[in-house]
């Protein structure tokens, strides 16, 4: 990574751990085989490597190797779960329940399901970003085939009460799918103990390579099946055709093995650093708001709104030094602020003012210290430039101003 550039965007993607890279290297040239080639040693060796990695990945989430379907990433795994269940269980019903704060890969797959004649309920969340369990239970009907709720949110890090959700789904007899992309490899995730029947996750959010992910599909009690969304050679027990990305899968396996060993220590260390960052902003600056639950959330993430400062402008004050992301409209192609933050009940103004800091395994404490100064100075600079900050300081009620909306 660039020498002085601080990377606080680990929820977008994590750097590939050098130990993972080392494990992958022999699988580019020395061992070129296709894992589906049954007639020669190159193929056998590749298949063996994939089996080993499958075991490592399965082990991380305490499931069986056969329950892991490799995909190109979490987006594909999300699509396979939602569309695959919808198609497979069409006789039982056509209703899917999900949250308004899900990732686009889930929301857009649900949108497709609706176009195919499905019925989707989008549950809202509370101010903390958490699902209302009663509303979930009430939303389940005899036509419901799937509940799709993400384990941890990508923008806020808020962790849903998966255990309670699992109990509701078990009681009602519906399948539960979770997009656990942000959680796996960072916090303990055990789908079977939680009552999750299908679960999507990906290597590049846990210090593995991009381009490889997985869908966990429960095999026993209940035996879950999905209709393949990619047709071809019948790989991955017929659920996902396409030549396996052997190199990527080997890296995914290694990343899972390392995560299993180190995630607890990483989480503890990062939580301390995250809290230090948050506290420093709260102490040094006025009008700082942490978005989402502060108790049920990932240890390495904070999503903060610096009121009366626009997020993209703020980022420009320090983006030569720190990489973060913002829920501001100006960073999106749609010019709409983050729908996740809006769903939490934040006003558009606070959503425009939000910055997500997501730390990672390679974050150092000195980077936190540097970032505190750079960001706090940036906020102060931008507030000096901000007419609404001036009005706020003069005691003007901003809600009473007649704005010229455009």
């Amino acid at each position, binding site marked *: 990574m660039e020498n002085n550039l601080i990377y606080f965007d680990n929820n977008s993607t994590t750097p590939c751990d050098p130990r993972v890279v080392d494990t992958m290297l022999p699988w580019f040239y020395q061992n070129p085989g296709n894992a589906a080639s049954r007639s020669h040693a190159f193929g056998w060796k590749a298949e063996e490597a994939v089996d080993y990695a499958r075991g490592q990945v399965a082990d991380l989430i305490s499931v069986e190797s056969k329950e892991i379907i490799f995909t190109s990433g979490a987006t594909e795994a999300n699509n396979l779960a939602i569309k695959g269940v919808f198609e497979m269980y069409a006789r039982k019903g056509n209703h899917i329940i999900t949250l308004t704060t899900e990732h686009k890969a889930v929301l857009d797959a649900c949108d497709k399901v609706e176009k195919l004649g499905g019925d989707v309920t989008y549950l809202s969340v509370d101010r903390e970003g958490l699902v209302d369990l009663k509303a979930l239970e009430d939303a389940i009907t005899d036509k419901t085939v799937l509940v799709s709720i993400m384990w941890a949110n990508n923008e806020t890090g808020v962790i849903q009460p998966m255990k309670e959700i699992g109990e509701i789904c078990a009681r009602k007899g519906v399948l539960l799918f979770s997009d656990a992309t942000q959680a796996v490899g960072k916090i303990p995730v055990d789908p079977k103990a939680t009552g999750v029947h299908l679960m999507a996750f990906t290597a590049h959010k846990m210090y593995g390579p991009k381009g490889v992910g997985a869908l966990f599909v429960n095999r026993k009690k209940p035996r879950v099946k999905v209709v393949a969304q990619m047709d071809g050679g019948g790989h991955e027990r017929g659920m996902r055709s396409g030549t396996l990305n052997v190199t990527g899968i080997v890296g995914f396996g290694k990343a899972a093995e390392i995560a299993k060993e180190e995630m607890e220590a990483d989480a503890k260390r990062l939580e301390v650093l995250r809290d230090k960052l948050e506290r420093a902003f709260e102490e040094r600056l006025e009008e700082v708001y942490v978005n989402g639950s502060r108790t049920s959330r990932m240890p390495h993430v904070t999503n903060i709104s610096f009121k*009366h*400062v*626009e997020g*993209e*402008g703020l980022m*420009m004050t320090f983006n030569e030094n720190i990489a973060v992301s913002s829920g*501001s*409209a*100006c960073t999106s*192609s749609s*010019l709409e*602020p983050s729908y996740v933050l809006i769903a939490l009940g934040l*006003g*558009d*103004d606070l959503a*425009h003012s939000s910055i997500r800091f997501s730390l990672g395994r390679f974050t150092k404490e000195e980077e936190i210290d540097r970032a505190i100064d750079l960001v706090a100075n940036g906020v102060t600079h931008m507030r*000096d*430039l*901000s*007419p*609404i*900050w*001036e009005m706020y300081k003069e005691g003007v009620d*901003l809600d009473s101003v007649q*704005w*010229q*909306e*455009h």
Partner: protein
Amino acid sequence: MAYSEKLLDHFKNPKNVGTLDKSKKSVGTGLVGAPECGDVMRLQIKVSEEGVIEDAKFKTFGCGSAIASSSLATEWLKGKNLDEASTIDNMDIVEELALPPVKIHCSVLAEDAIKMAIKDYREKNGQ
């Protein structure tokens, strides 16, 4: 998004940041945009008895392009009479700062703020 050198310079070293006394007859104020939209621009002009803009100040809540657009607008306003100032077109700002298409609205906001400040001055002075 990669921004032009000129835009980055206006963002890093904004010109004419500040506040003029809006209660004065010689000052015209334009306040456009809304916090919910992610940008609010306040542009003020101070007009001499000869009708020339002798000072211009701005404060902007917004992205880098919005801040640079307003900084540039204040530079252009100084020394112009009101009729000349009225002819500043948002596309001139787009061109000067090489604004990408998604940021054109920032230049529109600046043009609106200029027009509103001139209107405010004229109304105050019965013109």
